[in-house]
């Protein structure tokens, strides 16, 4: 993974001192609340319901064991002994005290973690494929490119005061595992027939209000021009993004108001001007620039004998719990003898995405012992040990199981994506954790989960959509109606290659109806599907909304007319 050099270290530690001084001046009454809000957000600090929330950036979801141990330490020292993984592969602490945050950030900086631009109207942490470097369907590792862009956008003064937040997502594989088109900019690495590497740029995606998928702006930007094209998009946004209405300030609104032709022409014109100026020279990436960053993302020292001595199938046949875990949580690796192990953060009664100090420590030890000291966070709020030898799988499972991290439910109905919701978040209109737990209990048995098969349920506690409800197969959005929590259901969303925004099915359901309603939708799918191979989303696309709607509003005669 990328390790800091002297410049990174100096930048992050000077940044901590800058924020320490800002916090001191705020507490001394020298900075207004509104001004300080902008400053703290740009350091990851968000005001939640009960305390500030600190969001820690995890570039493209890569973590190493020293960082995990530090997380265990800071959750105990500054928080309540746990942290939360988000859909953007970041980590959030829910209970730090403002006065202590500068010290907390200084401790994180020791292990190359920070909250720089984790919130606020700026360029946010870049997300990427959590299987980068190990997936068989990958043609180009996206991480070196994401890292170069990270360096370009971090504390970039021109783009530090944007109209609204701005997100990039990267992939270099056949399967999009990073929901890239839900970002303001999606960068798809592409390889032309002649072998040349380039970028297919999508612009204008974004969830929240008016969820939209990014539209193709340029099918092939040459490899040398990543930063030039990014500069053109960012400058266009900085100039033309609306600043009169926070709900219309994302770049997707510029695209919607202008139409794609005018929007594309503006970006291409700026791109051409950059290329023709001194800026273009500075932003041009030469092959050796990319090569030197690629050196940070080399493959670990795989054991050529890793295949020997592994009897995964034999043990799985004897130990059904291990067998279930192998089936659901372990995937193929491009190197023979190795597997990708998913660590489920969706145990029964757990809060989706939460990880305790003890679990952080166990994961540090397990990753050191079995996966070259690395761990990754995923778009679905789970974790990945990317390089586990087959012969170690049984031990890894035992050790994960001991700390409740081996629930065999990856990609199943209980692998629910959820934001923190009203229990923590100051923006939320409704709870999401309790709803996820209610749905979980309906399908708690493995047999029930396996019968349902692959499905993504996603829950957001408000319109901002941190739980990505718009792109869930079943999406649930919490809304406030006269002080009560209600839930709107959308169907047919997807975040993968077949990305789609879900369609709202009808009237919202009350808190005590929502789990029943979701169960009826899933039972309906089981009745409607052609056979076991037809997944929920495939079935929905075939039969459409109507039969699901009839089942969701079973007792309502007016439902058909709604």
């Amino acid at each position, binding site marked *: 993974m990328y390790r800091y050099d002297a*410049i990174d270290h*100096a*930048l992050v530690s*000077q*940044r901590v*001192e*800058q924020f320490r*001084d*800002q916090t001191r001046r705020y507490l001394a009454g*020298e*900075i207004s609340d509104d*001004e300080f809000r*902008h*400053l703290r957000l740009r350091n990851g600090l968000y005001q939640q319901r009960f305390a500030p929330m600190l969001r820690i950036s995890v570039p493209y979801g890569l973590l190493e064991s020293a960082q995990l141990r530090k997380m265990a330490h800071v959750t105990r020292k500054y928080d309540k002994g746990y942290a939360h993984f988000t859909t953007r592969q970041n980590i959030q602490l829910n209970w730090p005290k403002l006065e202590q945050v500068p010290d907390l950030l200084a401790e994180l900086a020791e292990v190359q973690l920070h909250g720089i631009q984790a919130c606020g*109207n700026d360029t946010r942490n870049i997300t990427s494929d959590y299987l980068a470097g190990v997936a068989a369907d990958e043609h180009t590792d996206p991480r070196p490119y994401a890292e*170069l862009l990270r*360096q*370009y956008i*971090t*504390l*970039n*003064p*021109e*783009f*530090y*005061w*944007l109209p609204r937040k701005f997100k990039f997502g990267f992939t270099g594989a056949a399967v999009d595992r990073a929901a890239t088109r839900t970002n303001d900019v999606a960068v798809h690495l592409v390889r032309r027939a002649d072998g040349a590497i380039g970028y297919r740029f999508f612009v204008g995606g974004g969830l929240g209000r008016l969820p939209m998928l990014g539209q193709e702006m340029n099918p092939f930007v040459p490899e040398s021009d990543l930063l030039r094209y990014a500069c053109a998009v960012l*400058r266009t946004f*900085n*100039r033309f993004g609306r*600043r009169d209405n926070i709900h219309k300030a994302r770049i997707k609104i510029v695209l919607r108001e202008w139409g794609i032709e005018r929007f594309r022409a503006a970006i291409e014109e700026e791109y051409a*001007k950059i290329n023709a*100026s*001194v*800026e273009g020279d*500075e*932003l041009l*990436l*030469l092959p*050796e*620039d990319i090569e*030197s*960053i690629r050196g940070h993302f080399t493959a670990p020292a795989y054991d050529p004998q890793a295949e020997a001595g592994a009897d995964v199938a034999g043990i799985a046949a004897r130990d059904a719990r291990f067998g279930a875990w192998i089936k659901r949580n372990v995937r193929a690796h491009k190197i023979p003898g190795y597997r990708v192990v998913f660590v489920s953060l969706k145990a029964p009664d757990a809060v989706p995405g939460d990880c305790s100090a003890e679990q952080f420590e166990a994961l540090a030890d397990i990753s050191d012992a079995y996966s070259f000291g690395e761990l990754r966070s995923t778009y679905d709020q789970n974790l990945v040990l990317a390089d586990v030898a087959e012969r170690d799988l049984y031990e890894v499972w035992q050790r994960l199981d001991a700390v409740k991290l081996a629930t065999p439910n990856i990609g199943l109905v209980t692998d629910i994506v959820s934001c923190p919701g009203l229990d923590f978040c100051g923006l939320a209109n409704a709870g999401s954790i309790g709803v996820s737990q209610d749905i979980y209990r309906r399908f708690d048995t493995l047999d029930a989960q396996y019968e349902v098969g692959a499905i993504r349920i996603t829950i957001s506690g408000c319109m901002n959509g941190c739980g990505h409800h718009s792109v869930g197969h079943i999406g649930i959005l919490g809304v406030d109606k006269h002080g009560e929590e209600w839930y709107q259901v959308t169907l047919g969303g997807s975040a993968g290659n077949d990305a789609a925004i879900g369609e709202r099915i009808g009237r919202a359901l009350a808190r005590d109806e929502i789990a029943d309603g979701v169960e009826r939708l899933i039972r309906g799918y089981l009745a409607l599907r052609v056979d076991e191979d037809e997944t929920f989303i495939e079935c929905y696309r075939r039969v459409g909304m109507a039969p699901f709607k009839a089942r969701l509003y079973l007792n309502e005669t007016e439902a058909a007319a709604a």
Partner: protein
Amino acid sequence: MTAILRRGEIVADDWAVIEDGRTELGTGGGKVIVTLARWRAEREALLAGHTAVGVLVPNTTDIEAVYAEIADRPLIALQFPTFADGRALSQAVVLRKRLSYRGELRAVGDIIRDLVFWLGRCGFESIAPRKDQNLESCRKALDEINVAYQAAADQHTPVWVRRRRALAAVH
């Protein structure tokens, strides 16, 4: 006379901003800053009546489109209606790097101490902070982070270029 920051120093401001509709001469030797609209309408009279004339450009203006009209001005002022509105940062970078403007580039408006660092990096040579801001604190803000990954309109060399040169030096 109010004080401002210029090239990292606190100095007395020798320019007066003349709002539209007002006719009096600026103080301090008659160096005045007028709006772009007024500059267009009263160019000859303004030049005849003042030692120097600078132009204030709204942050919604296409700076490249109007540059021919203001390229010879000794001072261009860009506006920050609120400190969080960063449009003029892009105008500044384009002025410095694409249009090679070498006159005094000034930031005016709702400029708080914690915006100053970013202004400095985007090529603002002079900065007029909001009246309630502590100028000495603003001055210190200019170099509170002295490393950078990327070049803006400042002295920094992009890290990828520095790595490239370091690599070339080894070979």
